[in-house]
């Protein structure tokens, strides 16, 4: 019988993959750059967050889990700053068509 941790991992990783899919679809379908930027930051942070959450029970020991969370935090910070920088560059370029 699959242990609770496995079931939790499966559910969380599935949700994470779904958000990645949503992010990619958003990246492709959204009309202009600014909205695509929205898809970029929200989807990948949430997708990665759920994947990391799902992987925590699998991680070897407390330190392994800490490293996973560290990766996720770095991506959060990096994604947020990159989105700000790109949005500023877009705004400087003039109003979107």
């Amino acid at each position, binding site marked *: 019988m699959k242990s609770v941790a496995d079931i939790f991992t499966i559910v969380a990783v599935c949700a994470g993959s779904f958000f990645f899919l949503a992010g*990619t679809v958003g990246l*492709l379908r959204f009309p202009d750059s600014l909205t695509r930027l929205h898809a970029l930051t929200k989807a990948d942070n949430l997708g990665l967050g759920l*994947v990391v959450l799902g*992987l925590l029970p699998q991680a*070897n020991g407390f330190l392994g889990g800490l*490293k996973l969370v*560290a990766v996720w935090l770095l991506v959060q910070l990096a994604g947020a700053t990159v989105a700000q920088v790109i949005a500023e560059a*877009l705004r400087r370029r003039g109003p979107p068509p």
Partner: protein
Amino acid sequence: MTEFLLGAAGFILLTVTVGLVRILAGPGNIDRTAAAQLLGTGGIAALLLVAGATGARGAEDVALGLALLAAFASVAFVNSVEQRPSDNAERADP
């Protein structure tokens, strides 16, 4: 369990390859940067999943490095393309 994790990693890589279309088609260079950032994160997720599944040593560190590089790449690109008026202002004053 490991085959599920590897399957999930494969699925995420699939979404990453679909996202590559945006890099090809992206009207502006800025869209390509945004797409590259998203694909970087997809790569990180796949790496973490493979690390969790196969227990390969050091795969999380590679993911950490990729996270850092993806951010630097995007910021470096945006700085190089956009000539900010504020930079010129600084350069103008003696």
